[in-house]
Structure formats: C-alpha cells, structure tokens
C-alpha cells in the first residue's frame, strides 16, 4: 500500500466531512405538529415507563419550542395538561399538577385530559383546577351549585332520525356522542353531551349515563345528585333495574365521597370562605361539606380589628376521609408554605410558571457506580486479570460532573517472544487511577482529566483538557481536546534515578458530531499524537542473522530453528526516537424502534510507515425494558513499520570482528503486518424497582494472524468481562 494512496484517501475523507458542515438553514415553521408529537412520545415512553423526571425534562423542550407564537393556544394547553399528568400521575405532586392544569385551562378553557393517561390522582388535580377556573363548576355540598354549563364539542347539525322511544333528534344525537365519549374514556365530554341531551329531552337513562360519567370523571357530588334523581324517577316509569343500580351507586358514593369541615376563626367580621372559588354559605361552616376528591383550596378573607386578613390552605380530599380545616387569618402576603402554589397559580407567562417550578426543586445529583472484572487468555500463554472501579457524579441542573476510576492490571506472560530470549514467565501488576470533570458554561462544555499509570518499570502521568460546543440546536457538536503525557521507562529492579528513559507525548483530538435525523448521528474524529523519546524495550533482544541467511529465514520459524541459524550476537531493540501518529475515524449510529446499530471505521498512518484500517460494528437489541443483547464484529488490518523485518541481518567486520547492526530494529510483533478478527457479544440485565441496577457480561474471541513474523503465525485469544453498575439519584 503506497503512502500516496492513504494520503489521498485521508484527504478525501476530510474534505467530505467538511462538506457536511455547509448545511442549509431550515426555515422557521409552526411547531404545533412537532410539540404534539413530543407530548405523545413523552407520555407513551417516559411517563408510561416511569421515567417521570425525564418526562418533565422532555416537556421543557416543548415549552422552548412554543416560545412566542410558535404554537397555538390549543397545543400550549395540551403541553400543560401533559405537565399536570406527569406531576399528578407520576410524581404525586398535587399542587404542581393543579397549577399546570390551571395554566392549561387559561390557554384553552376546553382543554381536557389525555384519556389513556388519566388516573384518579390526575382527575382530582384537574377537577381542582377546573374549580378554580372562572367557568368551572365546583361543588361544595351534596347539591351541586348552578354553574355555567360547558359547551359540548360537537353541535347538533339539525335533522337526523331517532329510534322509537325518543322524542328529540337533538337529544338522540348528543346521547350518541356521549356514549362515544364514554367508550373513549372522555368523561367530561360525556358529561357535556349528556347535559346537552338532557336539555333537549329529559330521559332517565340519559341522566344515568350523566351520573356514570360524572362519577368516572371525579365529579362525585354531581354524580351522587344525579344518581339520586334517577333512583327517584326510574321506579315511577317502570325502570326498576336502572333505579336499583342508581341506588347502589348513590350509596357507594355517599360512603366514599370526602368531606371537609371548615371551622371559622374566632372574632372575624365580613368573613367570606370559598372552596375552589365557590363561596360557601356561612351556615355550612362547622358542618360537613361534601366535596369532590382531589385538591381543594380553601380561601378565606375577613377583618379582624379593622385589618383585612386572609387565609389559604390546600388539602387533598381523599375518598372515605373527612378533613378538618381551621381558618387562621393572617396578614396579606404571608403565604408560608403555599408560596409556590400561589406562584404557579398566579403565573401569567410560561417563563413565570417555569420559575416557580425551578425555585421549588432542589439540586439534583445523579451518581453512577460501576465495577468491572475482565480477563484475557490466549494461545501464546498470556493471561491478564483486570478489575476496575468507576464512580461518577453528574448534576443535570448544574451542568457539571466529576468522575474517577481505579484499574488494576495483572499480567502474566510466557509468550513465544519471551521464551525465545530464554526468559522465564513473568508477572506484573499495573495500577491506574484517573480523575476527570466537566462543567457546562452556556453552550460550551469544558473538561479536564488526569491519569496515572504505575508499574514496576514504567510510570506514565498524563493530563489534558478539552471543550465542546453545541451548535444549531445541538445538531452539530464540535469538540477539541489536548492531552500531554510524560512517561518514564525503566528496568525492573532498578530505580528510575539509576536508569530511565523519558518519553513525552502531545495528543490533539478534534471531533464533530452531526445529528442527521431523529434517529441517526454521525461522529467524525481526527487524532494526532506526537511522541518524543526512546520507546525501545530494554528487555527485548532480537536474533541476528548473516545477510545471506536472513534472506532465507522462513516466516514462522520455530525457536529451535532460529537458534540453529542465528548469529551468536543478540541485539537490543532500537526504535526511532520520535513518532507522529494520525488517525481519522467515523462512527455512524442509528436507532430503530428497539435496537441500535453502530458502525465505525478508523484509518491510521504514522511516521514509522505503519498503516492500518479498523472496522467495527455492533448491533444492540433491547429485548424488553430490562434486557439488552448485542453481537459485535471487529476487523483490524495493518502493514508493518517501514523498518520491520522478520529476520534482521548483521554484517560482521573482518578487521575487528564487530558487527554492524540495522540502525532501526524491533521485535514488537504489533509493529509487523497482521490482521485481527474479533467476534463477540454481550448482554445486559437491568434490575431493581427503578431498573437502576444492571449487570453486563461481554465475551470476545480474538484471532490474530501474523503475516511476517518469527515463532508464531497466529494467536487465538479469549476475553471476558463482567460489569455491575448502579445509578443513584
């Protein structure tokens, strides 16, 4: 392979990557469709999957997308409904949910819950918000107050036929719409349609349907009243079954409907008490007031000694329970623990609402702990055992993170290269602590890291920093990093003060990640490493041959064969004292419905003449919420360094018997031409209530074919790793 061939390919790849940067700007457009798609996606995946905080974070994006006039009021209302659903149904935060629903109703008074995600808690919070809304109907007693009726979504177009027993086509039309709404669990719509039907024709069965939908929609006091009416009326017209059923439902509701006892304060004049915005008659104070389940806000205003005082308290009225509220009037503005609630209820803009939420949430910290045990064994008698420990802390709201790891590498080797030098099996332990951190500064993420590697005859210290920036709504993320490493190469058993070789490395990595579409990304990276120092191994002796013999030494010659043909001289390895290394890599990732494919290609060249190509692919499949499996394939091929020979020739001087050795010589078989194939796979199982624990196993078969080497033509290795990790919040 010629150097020009690789250089031209390298240039083409870089130019093509730069071509990708010239992307066209998208025109701005209404975001209704996209935000609705986001809401559906968040509720079906994050909310349904129990990832409530993630759901809120995703919905925040929707708020950003609805800035200004980017969304219609209807869609903004849906977004707030989604917020309220997550707060009430997921996080069990009633006040926040009610405030979100209130904001939704401000945007669109006809906003409704998502039927598939409505739970009793959600319904209760929504009812509470409805009670605070100007057009909402809230009950404070067993007999519902007369409130402005909601308008049904569809209006009778006129005409139409109706079956026997009906007198009004309009009533029949609305009754049909009501049954459709009931089937799709749109309880409030059902109530609206039945109310409209009742206005056109007062039928017992229609009222029974009204009461049923009211009960399902959390309007228990209204439902109780309607069931009572049905009980009274059904028997008179011979519908005894309906009457009995209504009586049973009414009895059940009487038992489970929550009650509130509100005690008036002593010495208060002009006292006005409201429950969810509906004024409570003075005669009802001190007695049981039947309320719908869910959030109930009791407010009171009055005068004590001429001073205007007020009171507010939110309670969660649960079924079968009776709550008692003591009104304690206080100065205006002293809201205490209700500050957040009033903040949200009073929010006029979406930014105001967001500020109320952020002020209530404390700092969050995500901790990740992991331990990995890995081992390797190959046919060349090399064994490694590597336990590693990792810990990281990430603050999603603070935009910073720190991480640390500690790795122990235990290696025992009796490879052919070692045996050939008549060396015994050796064993060595390496310790590698590292630490890093990053901080988000606006759109820029800055990072620092430090690393230490210690073994008896080698010490490496490195530190580096980098930065990345998010562009075009995080669809393009370029990054640049620099790392400096200072290595000290020594000899086992000899202090560094006696024998040492210093090696310095400067590494620069430039990368850019492109988000191609909703499911695909492409990451390109360019790495350049400049090495200065003698990296020759002080223990690596090479067999030398006479020039005429070297030409005839076959590839793969055994240790005995080499010993028979070599010269008596043994030469130490000698590598160039500087090296420039370049690599360009591209990674393509695509997410399907429940699987991901990752394909990566790396091209490498260096000043020692070594060229390489590495291709890897992984296909990760989510079998279910807890189990993921993946096969993987990796192929690596490289040429040898320009000074690589499997048999080096040494010429002897006839004058003094000394030998002239090749200036550059090496026995590192990873500097020779070879190819390697790795076939592997893994599996991951998440367990625990929140799936915060996970155990993974990974296994690879590594086959390497040496194309121009002595002693060994190929090597088969087995690698295995087990990882246990946990995420804590």
């Amino acid at each position, binding site marked *: 392979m010629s150097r020009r061939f690789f250089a031209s*390919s390298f240039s*083409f790849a870089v130019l093509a990557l730069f*071509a*990708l940067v010239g992307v066209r700007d998208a025109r701005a457009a209404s975001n209704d469709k*996209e935000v609705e*798609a*986001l809401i559906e996606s968040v509720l079906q995946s*994050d909310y349904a999957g129990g990832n409530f905080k993630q759901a809120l974070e995703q919905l925040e*994006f929707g708020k*950003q*997308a609805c800035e200004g006039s980017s969304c219609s009021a209807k869609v903004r209302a849906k977004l707030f409904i989604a917020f309220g659903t997550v707060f009430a149904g997921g996080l069990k935060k009633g006040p926040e949910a009610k405030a979100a629903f209130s904001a939704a109703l401000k945007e669109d008074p006809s906003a409704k819950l998502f039927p598939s995600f409505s739970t009793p808690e959600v319904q209760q919070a929504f009812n509470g918000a409805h009670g605070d809304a100007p057009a909402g109907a809230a009950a404070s007693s067993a007999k519902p107050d007369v409130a402005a009726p909601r308008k049904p979504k569809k209006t009778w177009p006129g005409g139409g036929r109706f079956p026997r027993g009906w007198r009004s086509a309009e009533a029949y039309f609305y009754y049909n719409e009501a049954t459709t709404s009931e089937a799709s669990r749109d309880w409030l719509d059902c109530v609206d349609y039945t109310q409209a039907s009742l206005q056109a024709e007062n039928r017992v069965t229609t009222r029974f349907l009204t009461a049923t939908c009211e009960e399902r929609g959390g309007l228990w006091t209204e439902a109780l009243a309607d069931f009572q009416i049905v009980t009274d009326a059904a028997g008179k017209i011979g519908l005894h079954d309906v009457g009995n059923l209504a009586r049973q439902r009414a009895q059940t509701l009487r038992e489970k409907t929550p009650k509130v006892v509100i005690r008036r304060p002593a010495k208060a004049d002009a006292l006005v008490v409201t429950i969810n915005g509906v004024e409570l008659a003075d005669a009802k104070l001190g007695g049981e007031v039947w309320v719908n389940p869910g959030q109930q806000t009791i407010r009171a205003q009055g005068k004590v000694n001429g001073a205007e005082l007020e009171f507010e308290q939110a309670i969660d009225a649960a079924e079968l329970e009776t709550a008692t509220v003591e009104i304690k009037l206080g100065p205006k503005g002293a809201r205490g623990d209700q500050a957040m609630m009033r903040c949200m209820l009073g929010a006029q803009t979406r930014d105001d609402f967001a500020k109320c939420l952020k002020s209530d949430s404390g700092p969050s910290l995500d901790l990740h702990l992991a331990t*990995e045990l*890995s081992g390797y064994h190959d046919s060349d008698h090399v064994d*490694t055992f590597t336990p590693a420990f990792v810990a990281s802390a990430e603050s999603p709201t603070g935009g910073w993170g720190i991480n640390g790891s500690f*790795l122990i590498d235990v290696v025992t080797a009796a490879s052919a290269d070692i045996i050939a030098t008549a060396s015994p099996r050796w064993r060595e332990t*390496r310790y590698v602590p590292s630490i890093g951190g990053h901080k988000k500064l606006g759109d820029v993420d800055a990072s620092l890291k430090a*690393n230490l590697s210690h073994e008896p*005859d080698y010490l*490496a210290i490195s530190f580096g920093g980098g930065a990345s920036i998010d562009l*075009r*709504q*995080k669809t393009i993320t370029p990054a640049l*990093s620099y*790392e400096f*490493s200072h*290595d000290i190469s020594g000899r086992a058993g000899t202090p560094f003060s006696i024998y040492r070789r210093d090696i310095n*490395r*400067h*590494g620069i*990595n430039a*990368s850019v990640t492109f*988000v*191609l*579409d*909703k*499911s695909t*990304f492409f990451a390109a*990276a360019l*790495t350049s*490493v400049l090495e200065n120092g003698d990296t020759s*191994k002080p223990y690596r002796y090479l067999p030398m041959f006479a020039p005429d013999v070297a030409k005839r030494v076959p590839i793969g010659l055994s240790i005995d064969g080499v010993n028979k043909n070599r010269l008596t001289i043994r030469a130490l390895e000698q590598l160039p004292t500087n090296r420039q*290394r370049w*690599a360009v*890599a*591209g990674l393509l990732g695509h997410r399907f419905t429940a699987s*991901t494919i990752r*394909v990566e*290609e*790396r*091209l*490498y060249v260096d000043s020692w003449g*070594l060229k*390489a*190509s590495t291709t890897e692919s992984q296909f990760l499949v989510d079998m279910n919420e807890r189990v993921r499996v993946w096969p993987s394939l990796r192929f690596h*091929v*490289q040429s040898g360094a320009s000074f690589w020979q499997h048999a080096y020739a040494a010429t002897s001087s006839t004058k003094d018997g000394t030998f002239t050795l090749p200036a550059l010589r090496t026995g590192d078989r*990873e500097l020779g*031409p070879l190819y390697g194939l790795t076939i592997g796979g893994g599996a991951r199982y998440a367990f625990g209530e929140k799936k915060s624990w996970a155990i993974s196993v990974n296994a*690879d078969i590594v086959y390497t074919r040496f194309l*121009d080497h002595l002693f060994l033509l190929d090597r088969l290795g087995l690698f295995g790793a087990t990882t246990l990790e946990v995420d804590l919040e």
Partner: protein
Amino acid sequence: MTKKILRTLASCVITSVAMIVALVATTGCSTVAPYERGKLAHPTMAASDMTGFGEAHLRAISEGATGGSGGTGSGCGCN
C-alpha cells in the same frame, strides 16, 4: 501475495468509507428539534466509545494503531 491482499482489503474499506461519507453528504443534516431527541438520547446512541476498560486496553496493546476516540496512546509499557 500478502501485499496484494492487503491492498485489496484496504481499497474495499476505503470505498466503503467513501460511500458512507457521500451518503451522509447527500442527505445532509436536518434540523432536529430538541423535543424530537427521544431516540438520540438512548444510552446506546452515545457518540463516545462504549468499550469497557479491559477491552479498550486489550485493543491498545494488540493493535499497532491508536486514536480515533481521543487519548494519546498506551501510557503503559505493555507492548
């Protein structure tokens, strides 16, 4: 023979890479709104190297090439 095989393999790889790059270049980057990133946020879609410690170290010492995912190199006297 060996050089011919390596040359052929390299040309196939380079051609594949060029095709991928060309495909990406023709499709271009679409504007993906932040709220459409559900799949992109999946843990298997990280742009960083997902290899574990042991496997990454094994590759570093058994292959003559380095780089492409950041870092200066071995940092150990392993080879």
